[in-house]
């Protein structure tokens, strides 16, 4: 199970998830504003 506060590797994996989620949100917002 992912525990970002246990090790650097887990924290980095959480960062990748956050980048994926927020990257999608930002992309949706940018596309919606462009339309």
């Amino acid at each position, binding site marked *: 199970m992912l525990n970002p506060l246990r090790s650097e590797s887990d*924290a980095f994996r959480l960062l990748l998830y956050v980048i994926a989620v927020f990257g999608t949100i930002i992309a949706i917002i940018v596309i919606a504003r462009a339309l």
Partner: protein
Amino acid sequence: MEAASVAHGGHESAHGAGEEHHGPIAANRSSRVDAPTLGMLLFIISEIMIFGAFFTAYFFIRVAQGDPWPAPGTTIPVAVAGFNTAILVSSSFTLHWAETSIKRGNRFGLRAGILSTLLLGATFLFIQINEYVHLGFAPRDSAQATIFYGLTGLHGAHVCIGLILLSFATIRSFRGHYSPEEHKGLNVPGIYWHFVDIMWIVVFTTVYVI
């Protein structure tokens, strides 16, 4: 004096001569998490609460109050902040490179990775300060400006703390303190640095993009 020695003797006889304990009692330690990681865990939880308080103020202004963002007549440099975001995110990648390198016994990778992280973090902070200089509004100008400087400044302070921790880790890396078996001094600041990076992604999305 005699009374004292009698009292002392009575105390010894009550506990037995062989069971005497000197100094403070042994600290109670968790069997699951080591002390440095537990300390960082509790610190990060408290940090999330501090950021939560600032985000509450931000959402109060935008949602409950319905004020425009940013304040009328002001602009915030989204492109510069986006570039800065890329710098900070890449610093997390170089830090992860340093960590995986030392796990494999690659000292060059460790040193190059940690030094790159330090330089990228310092660049982020420099661009942030430069952005403040050229913004054209001050924290006292409006509630939006106060929250803008509050949130980004709070994050900047965390980058500062992270850079101090990474400086120690960098010096120790160049002194050869870390090994594939023992690199806790890199692991714990690494968790903090990734947390700072995650918080910036949230701050960037809410303050600059939405």
